[in-house]
Every structure is written in C-alpha cells, then in structure tokens.
C-alpha cells in the first residue's frame, strides 16, 4: 500500500480496518519464545491443516499472536468469538477443538483449564484465577494482534494517540499530560517521566535523541521481551510521541542480543511503520520527522545502565561515567538524550488516548498506573502479571500466582533483580509500590519477582547475586570491582562451611562502602541482596557459620544426599540414572548412596517416585 500522506488519510484507513467482521471466527495461538519452545509451531501447522480439511480457510482465521502472559501454560489457544481458553493443547487435540469449538461453538471439556482450587474447569480467560486480579492495560491487545502486522495494531486503535498528538497537542501539552499522569520510569529507578522529558526538552542543543532501553538484563525479568515480541508498535508509538515532545528526530532501541525474536519483530515493525508513513520524513504529512534504529547488545548486563548503554551505542566498552551531567543534558555523543524503559514508552500512547486523569486514578498516591511483574521461581502460576500499583504481595503470590508448588512454604520474595532485596514471608501483606518496597529494603526495579520456598538457601541466593554482579561489573571503579570480589569470597566461604562471625560484620561494612562510593548503580545497589538477607535471615547465616549446616539443604559441602531405607522400594531407578554410578544395592533391596562419589546433582531426587531420597 502507498504511504499515508495525512492524518485524515490515516483515519480513513483505520476505519476500513475496524469495519471488518469483528466477530469473525478466529483461532488465536500465542507464539512468543516460550510458546515456540513448547511446540507452538506444530500447533499452528495442525490448526491450519485441520481448517483446510473442513474447507473453512476463508471463514476461520488463524491468528498467531505474541505472549499472553501465562507462561506456565503457553502456548495458549483461544477460540474466538466464544473466548474458549485452551491451555497448552497438543496437535492431536486440534481436530476436536476445530470440530467442537470452532464449528459448533462448544468447549471441549477435558482440554479446558483446570485448577485444583476450583470445582469445575474454566471456559473463559477472565474466570481463571491467574487473570482475575490482573489489570491488563499494556498487555491488553496481545491476543488481538499479530505482532508482525501493523494493520492489526491500527485496527485495535493503534497510532490514534500519535495522530491526536500531531493534530491537537503541542510538545509542551504532551509533557504536561505525562507529568499529570504521574508516570514514573519503569526501568527500576522510578524517576518521574514527565519531568525527565521536560529537562531534555529544555536542555540547550538542536540535536536530541530518544532511546528505548531494552537491555532487560535482570535475571528473572522478561516482561520487556514479551512486550517487544507481542506488541512492538506500542513501544514505537510511545517513542514517536516522546520524540515529538522533546524535539528529537532520531531514536535508538537498544535490545540485548539474547532476545533474537524481539529484534526480529521490532525490525519488521519499524519497516512496516516506515512503509505506512508513520516513521521517517514528515510523518503523516506533518512537519515532524523521526527514525528509529535498532542496536543490539553484546552480552553485558552493565549496558542496562544508561550511561554504559550510551557508551555501547557509541561503539565503546560499556563503562558508566560520572553524573552529573545527566543524559538529559549531555547524552549520546554529548547531546541531550532521553532514555526510558520499554514499559515506560508503552504506557505513553495509553495516557494520551485515555487521559492523564484516568491513568492517575490507577495505583497509589505516589505510584500511578500498573506494573508488570514477572512472577517466577517456586510458584504454581509462572508468568507475566500486570497489576495496579498497591496490590499486596499476598494477592500476587496466592491469588494470582496460585501459591507454592508441592505444598512447600513461602520463604521470601525477591524483587528488583540483583539490585533488589529479599522480602521475607512475614511481610506478605506489603502493598507493592515504589515507597513501601524501598522501606522494606528492596526496590521495584524492572519488575522481576522471584518466589522462594523453604528449600531456597538465602545465603546461597546472596552469593548467587554477588557472583552475577561480580562477573558483570565493568571494573572501572574500585569499590564495585574489588568490593564485589571480596564479598563473593566471604559468601562463598560461608556457603562452604568456612565462615566466621567476623565475616558478617565485614560484609556489612563492605556493603555500606559500596553503596556510598560506587560510580554507578550496579555497584551502588549490589549490596541490597546481601543487606536484606542479613537483615531478615540472619539465622541462616549463623547456621552456616556456627553449625556448619545449610537448613534449606542447598549448599553442597554442607549437605548429604541419603536414601531413606524404609521408604526405598529397591526399584533401582536412581541407580540407573546416577551419572556418577554412586548408588549401589542388591536387586529389590533399598539402595545406598556412596558419599564420596556423589556430586549432589539431584538426578536421583528428581526421578525417585517414592520420595525416598532426602537431603540432610
């Protein structure tokens, strides 16, 4: 199609798209990275074939969407317009689904979502506990659109915000609207977005840049990946609006190279936007021009830090620099630059279309809007959840998350990635917003929420995070480079049973020095996991040091794998699977593990059907 030359042409065009049959039969299959790993491709193939077989290829659409957030059950198949929800069906189930649900409009009972807490199977997504308490506004359109089609995005109202901005609002209007909404940066620091835009707009200089930070390095966080794979245009639209408000004509999206699908879908989206006339010279005939370039990361966590990110775009190693001057004044190649996180940009079109008033009514007094958390770890319903700010941890873990698997007890919730802290189960009723998390010693961060149970060793968790950061530290400043190394050595020796009580005091001292004097927030927030675990889980540290025991049964030098001679039936499954040949026993007799050969890999624990393997 030819480029759209004016806002009027755009509106005419979008109307033709929305005019289509809103109730057309559609088979929606979610297919982002997780879905693909669990066989979405085969499902899509099977669905298309089956529809062909019934000669319904023109009456029934197959829509391949991005992720629907319920990772534990991806790929998800939804039959529209009845909205019948099928979690992770197999290709063999397709004929039944097509026949019963697509053609006759009835659910196939045995394939529906079943929850042990509910009496009967659930037909509709909205009744599933995982989705019930969520407020999906950023993720709202995920199932409506094929992320590789800009037409789908326009059909559901995409780029309306942009046309509103270009036709009715000045840059100052836009900034004031964003300020009014109370939107805070979703990358982790939570700085008021409107104010940041204002600084950048007011900074002297004619060349300005906007950057989207898609370097989502926090382990356990993948909501940015999901947004980019499922609705890339929402981010692009946000960036165009932001660039207009600030006065920038070039934008960069810095995506980590570990997200190949996101890069692919963004590339397609940008190209399509150019083709339609929504990016490039004179957008929709207006005097505003803007282009976006994708820059791939090269495997460095520190490049998520804004100044390191900019150094990387400039072709250098990702080392942060001193601030002030902040990027808003002096950023990319010395020019005023506005960097925002993926989720922040995606919020912008919503705020413009629905208004700052609407937005500021969601959330708490100081934390407005919704937040996307990646609920992972020891939790039944792993997935991406979008909730209003202020929801409690209890609701997140139990109502939405479905509680802890295998009947274990909740021990802690880790928020904010390696910059955050571990919140103990005793604070389960804490409302989730920027301030209360900070008071508890953690941070909101990019929204990673890792649930830990009684078999998670908190000292090991602290060591894990310090180890991660020690490897990712750029090495420029001594407090971070040396401090992390020393903290790791101390934590490692505690986990190996060689710790002393003096170590704890030294850890704390190191932590405070790093907090005060690191050049950037990698080193500045690195002590958080250590400080929070010391604060809330000191008894575990003491157990490791004084008793040389790991109560959670994790730290290998302090535990032993044993077979309960009473529970063991002698089936020999463990012996067969042991990679070290460490298990012996006569036929049908209980097995024993040779402690010298055992590497504590956990395979025997995994395969034993009788719970006979214990960790002591």
């Amino acid at each position, binding site marked *: 199609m030819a480029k759209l030359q004016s806002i009027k042409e755009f509106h005419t065009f979008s109307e033709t798209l929305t005019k289509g049959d809103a109730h057309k039969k559609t088979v929606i299959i979610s297919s982002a990275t997780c879905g693909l790993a669990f066989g979405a491709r085969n499902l899509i193939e099977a669905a298309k074939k089956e529809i062909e077989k019934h000669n319904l290829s023109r009456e029934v659409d197959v829509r391949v969407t991005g992720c629907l957030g319920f990772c534990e059950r991806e790929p998800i198949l939804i039959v529209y317009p009845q909205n019948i929800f099928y979690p992770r069906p197999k290709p063999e189930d397709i004929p039944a689904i097509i026949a019963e649900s697509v053609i006759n409009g009835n659910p196939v009972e045995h394939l529906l979502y079943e929850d042990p807490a509910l009496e009967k199977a659930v037909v509709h997504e909205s009744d599933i506990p995982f989705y019930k308490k969520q407020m999906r506004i950023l993720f709202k359109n995920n199932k409506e659109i094929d992320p590789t089609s800009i037409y789908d995005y326009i059909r559901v109202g995409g780029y309306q915000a942009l046309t509103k901005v270009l036709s009715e609002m000045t840059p100052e209007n836009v900034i004031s609207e964003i300020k009014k909404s109370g939107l805070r940066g979703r990358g982790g620091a939570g700085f008021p977005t409107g104010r940041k835009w204002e600084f950048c707009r007011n900074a002297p200089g004619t060349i300005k840049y906007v950057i989207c930070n898609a370097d989502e390095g926090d*382990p356990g966080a993948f909501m940015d990946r999901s947004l980019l794979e499922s609705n890339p245009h929402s981010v692009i639209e946000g960036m165009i609006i932001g660039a207009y408000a600030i006065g920038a004509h070039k934008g960069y999206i810095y995506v980590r190279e570990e997200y190949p699908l996101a890069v692919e879908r963004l590339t397609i989206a940008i190209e399509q936007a150019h083709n339609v006339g929504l990016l490039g010279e004179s957008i929709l005939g207006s005097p505003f021009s803007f282009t976006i370039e994708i820059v791939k990361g090269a495997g460095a966590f520190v490049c998520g830090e804004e100044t390191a990110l900019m150094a990387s775009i400039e072709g250098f190693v990702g080392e942060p620099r001193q601030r002030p001057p902040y990027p808003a004044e002096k950023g990319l190649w010395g020019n005023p630059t506005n960097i925002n996180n993926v989720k922040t940009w995606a919020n912008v079109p919503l705020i413009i279309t629905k208004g700052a008033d609407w937005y500021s009514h969601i959330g708490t007094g100081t934390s407005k809007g919704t937040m996307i958390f990646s609920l992972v770890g020891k939790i039944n319903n792993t997935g991406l959840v979008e909730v209003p700010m202020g929801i409690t941890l209890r609701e997140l873990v139990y109502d939405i998350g479905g509680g802890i698997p295998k009947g274990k007890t909740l021990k802690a919730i880790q928020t904010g990635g390696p910059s955050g802290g571990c919140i103990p189960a005793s604070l389960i009723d804490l409302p989730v917003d920027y301030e209360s998390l900070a008071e508890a010693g953690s941070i909101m961060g990019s929204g990673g929420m890792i649930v830990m149970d009684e078999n998670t060793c908190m000292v090991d968790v602290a060591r894990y995070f310090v180890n991660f950061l020690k490897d990712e530290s750029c090495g420029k400043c001594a407090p971070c480079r040396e401090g992390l190394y020393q903290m790791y050595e101390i934590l490692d020796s505690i986990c190996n049973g060689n710790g002393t009580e003096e170590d704890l005091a030294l850890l704390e001292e190191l932590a405070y020095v790093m907090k005060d004097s690191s050049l950037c927030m990698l080193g500045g927030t690195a002590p958080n996991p250590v400080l929070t675990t010391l604060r809330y889980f000191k008894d575990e540290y003491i157990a490791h040091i004084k008793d040389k025991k790991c109560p959670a049964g994790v730290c290998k030098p302090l535990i032993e794998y044993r077979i309960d001679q009473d529970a063991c039936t002698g089936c020999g499954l463990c012996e067969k699977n042991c990679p070290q040949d460490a298990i012996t026993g006569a036929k049908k007799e209980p097995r024993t593990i040779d402690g010298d050969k055992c590497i504590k890999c956990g395979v025997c624990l*995994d395969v034993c059907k009788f719970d006979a393997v214990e960790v002591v």
Partner: protein
Amino acid sequence: MRIGVYVCECGINIGATVDVEKVAEYAKSLPRVKVSRYYKYMCSDPGQELIKKDIKELGLDKVVVASCSPRMHEPTFRAVVEDCGLNPYCFEMANIREQCSWVHTDKEKATKKAMKIVAGAVARAALLEPLQKKEVPVTPQALVIGGGIAGIQAALEIGNMGYKTYLVERTPSIGGRMAQLDKTFPTLDCSACILTPKMVDVARHPNVELLTYSEVVNVDGYVGNFKVKVKKKPRYIDLEKCTGCADCIEQCPVQYQPQVVEVPSIKRKMDDKDIQNLDTILRKYQGKKGGLIPIMQEINALYNYLPEDALKYISEQLDVLLGTVYHVATFYKSFALTPRGKHIIRVCMGTACHVRGSDKVLDIIEGELGIQPGETTEDFMFTLETVNCLGCCALGPVVVVDKEYHPTTPSGVKALIEQYKTQEVIHHG
C-alpha cells in the same frame, strides 16, 4: 607381660636437667613394669649387662630404655635384647635427651616431661609385636613424574647409575618452565643452552624411557615395589597437515573411528574470500558512528568467533587501535576469541533457573562432555557457555542449543546431549 625400664643419666647430659632417680621411681608405678632402674651410662658394657641380667633372671619380655635419640643407640640396645633371645623389635626407646634435657632448663618441669615420655614409651612397648626382618626383591627401576629440568636431571642421574628409568610428562614435550625462560639466575646462563643438551641426553639415554603427553593416574604398592598406572593421552590429527586420505582410519587398530566432521580451522588466516566478506561488512557500516560493535557482531556470527587476523584487518581499515578493538572484544560476553564448536550449548544462570536447579544441570553437562563453561570439546562438536538470563523463566532451567530452547531437568539433560551427539556421528566408508 613383663616390662623393664632403664633410665640413663648420660653424665650431665641428662642428669643435670632431669632427675633420673625420680623418673625411674615413677616408672615403677606404670602398668606391667616389673623392674625400673637408673644408671650413669646405659650404653656402656656394665649398662648393657644390667639389662641382660634382668632379662635372664626376671624373665622380661619387653625393654624400654630412656636415654638419647634412637638414632644414636637404638641399634645398640636392639642387639642387647637379641643376644638374650628376645625379638629385637620388643624394644622401645624413649628420648629424654634431645627431646627433653637438651632443650629445657627448668629441672622440675623437665623431670615431669621425662616421666610423661617414659610413660608413653611403656604404653607403646606393651603393644609391640615381634617382627621378622625379611628381604624383599626390589624392582630396580625408577619412575620420575614431571619432565621439567628437575625431572630430566633426576632421570639422567638414575639412568647413569644403570637403572631403567621412566620419565612421565603431562605435556607433549619435556623441558617445562626452563624452556620458556631466557636466563638463569644468578649465573646468567642462557636457559635453553643449559637445558637442551640435557633434553637430548635424556631422549637418547639407553636407560631412560620417555612417556610424554601422559599422566600418572594411580600409584599402588610400596617402596621398592610400586605399581603405577600411567594414562597415555590420545594423539590427534593435525588439521593443518591432514589431506583426508583416510589411511589412518584403515590402520587404526582401535574400534574408534575418527569422525569426519566439519571443523573450523584453529587459526583462520584471512584469504581473499574472507577479505571480501570483511569488506562487505565494513562497507555496510561505513560512516556510521559507533559501528565497531555491530561490525564485530557480524564477524562473530560469520565465523562463529572473532579470528585474530580479522580483528587486525578491521583495526587497520577503521583506523582504530588494535588494543581498543581487543578491549571491546574481551569486554562483551557474546564475542568468542577462540573457535567454537558445531553446537553451542548455553545454560541459563538466571535467578529463576538457579532457584530451579540450573547449577545441577550445568554440573551434569560438564560431566557428560568433560568441559567447563567457555571451553569446547576436543572434537569441536560442542561449546559450553553460560548465559545470564534468557528471559524464559517459565521454562527453567533452560538450555539453548544453537537456536532451540529446551526446558530441562537434571534427569533429562543427559538424554538431550545424547540426541545431539548421535545426530553427528558420520561413519566413514
């Protein structure tokens, strides 16, 4: 059991610091002690007679002498005891001279210590058993572990004495660190000039057998009769020289067939085709600010690693210092500076995966393939890497092989590796 205790005064050597009378008196109270005496010089003839008389008349079966170091007079007293018909190993010596009177000044404390030493000797004597001396044949060979200068010299000396010597060296060549040095200190000799003649000598020595590229894996046996297991590491095909004639496969007596696998050259020299590829990449980013990293990403993708010559070439073309290029290449984790295998296995070490046991999965993969993260298997089939969070936490623990994402478990990962292994064995002929 009847133990006799004899405490020696040794003139002033012991007597000046230890009250030997008290010690002898004390020894009387020890269990199984039948007689306890003290004398000026136990090693003298009259002293020896004392012992002999007591053995005959009192029927002693164990003797303890508290005097000087056994290194001095143990043989003396063993002979005394043997002369009386007792087994010479039923004798125990307590050193209250070198270990007591000669190193202390406080008489009271030294006497007390001497008493303790004697008590210990008496207790040990009670446990002594008669021993028979016998002769054992000794294998007149030696094995030297380590083929550095020390090992080479040792092998030469033993070999020159006429004994067969094995010299085991872990690396493919003997010489060790000295071969890497320029000069020795303080003589300031040329290191290689001293070393290499010895290397030649040991290599041609009729008594010395060199076992290079081999490792000692087990030592059994005892002094004079060791049984040592040496592992000779497998020899490989030099890819630079291999012409693909396949004669080796025919001749190889072992069942293991060399696999015909497409293997990246170790040190890839840039030929004309490569220069063309590099130029195409450079042209794409010409004039672009910050192009260094994307250029390197494309080269990394093309060759599966960053060849040294490629980096040198782009350093010249872009007019960027080679040091800067290497600074960037070594900073970012996704760049590899050594050739990688056909299949790249990336294990996610993100927090969610960690909590779900990714370290256990990594352990098992390390065990299966025999490599650590960052390394490549010797047949260039697999490279193992860790990744800090792929963002697929619901699949955790996640392992990505090439572009395929695999949710795994400790019990399932072995089968996964097998799957990739068996896909690749191409039988020749």
